[in-house]
């Protein structure tokens, strides 16, 4: 009976770890889809326009974005070698990484919020390895919850 109890505790710990790892995997799937979508879109746009976009109109990944109200006063101090920056804001700000920006632009096919059209789902599935397609299908309906290896016992 004691061993049963120990195994129950062990089982819960493993379930918790699996839940965390599935969440990390979900995030990586979104990144893969968003990056591949972005590269494809930019390549197609360049082919259609027969030239790359002006270099001062784009920003290369990776980057992070700090956004604040346009009324915010920002004081910026920069070291001579640009190794150190200090920003003082008189209002709140938010920070987002490039993957977050790509999600906001729809590059992750709506999978981050589970609102994915049939067409988007088809595109998303084509951008991940075949073994991960079941995850993408689940994410389109909400989030990964029950994709398990079939038990041999």
């Amino acid at each position, binding site marked *: 009976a004691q061993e049963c109890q120990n195994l129950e505790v062990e089982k819960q710990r493993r379930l918790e770890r699996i839940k965390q790892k599935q969440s990390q995997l979900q*995030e990586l799937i979104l990144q893969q889809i968003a990056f591949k979508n972005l590269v494809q879109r930019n390549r197609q746009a360049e082919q259609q326009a027969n030239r790359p976009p002006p270099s001062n109109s784009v920003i290369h990944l*990776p980057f*992070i974005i700090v956004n604040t109200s346009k009324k915010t006063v920002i004081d910026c101090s920069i070291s001579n070698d640009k190794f150190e920056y200090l920003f003082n804001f008189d209002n*709140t*700000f*938010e*920070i*987002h*990484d490039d*993957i*977050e920006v790509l999600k906001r632009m729809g590059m992750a096919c709506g999978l981050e919020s589970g609102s994915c059209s049939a067409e988007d789902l088809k595109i998303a599935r084509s951008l991940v390895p075949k073994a991960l397609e079941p995850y993408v299908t689940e994410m389109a309906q909400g989030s990964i919850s029950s994709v398990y290896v079939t038990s041999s016992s």
Partner: protein
Amino acid sequence: ACLTPRTALLYKFNGSPSKSLKDINNMIKQGEHR
């Protein structure tokens, strides 16, 4: 060297997950609501 989690939140480029930035944003918002 004197910083602790009570004084500041940290994020490392190409090292920390997106969640670290979300934690920073939540901290700023909570401070504002208080």
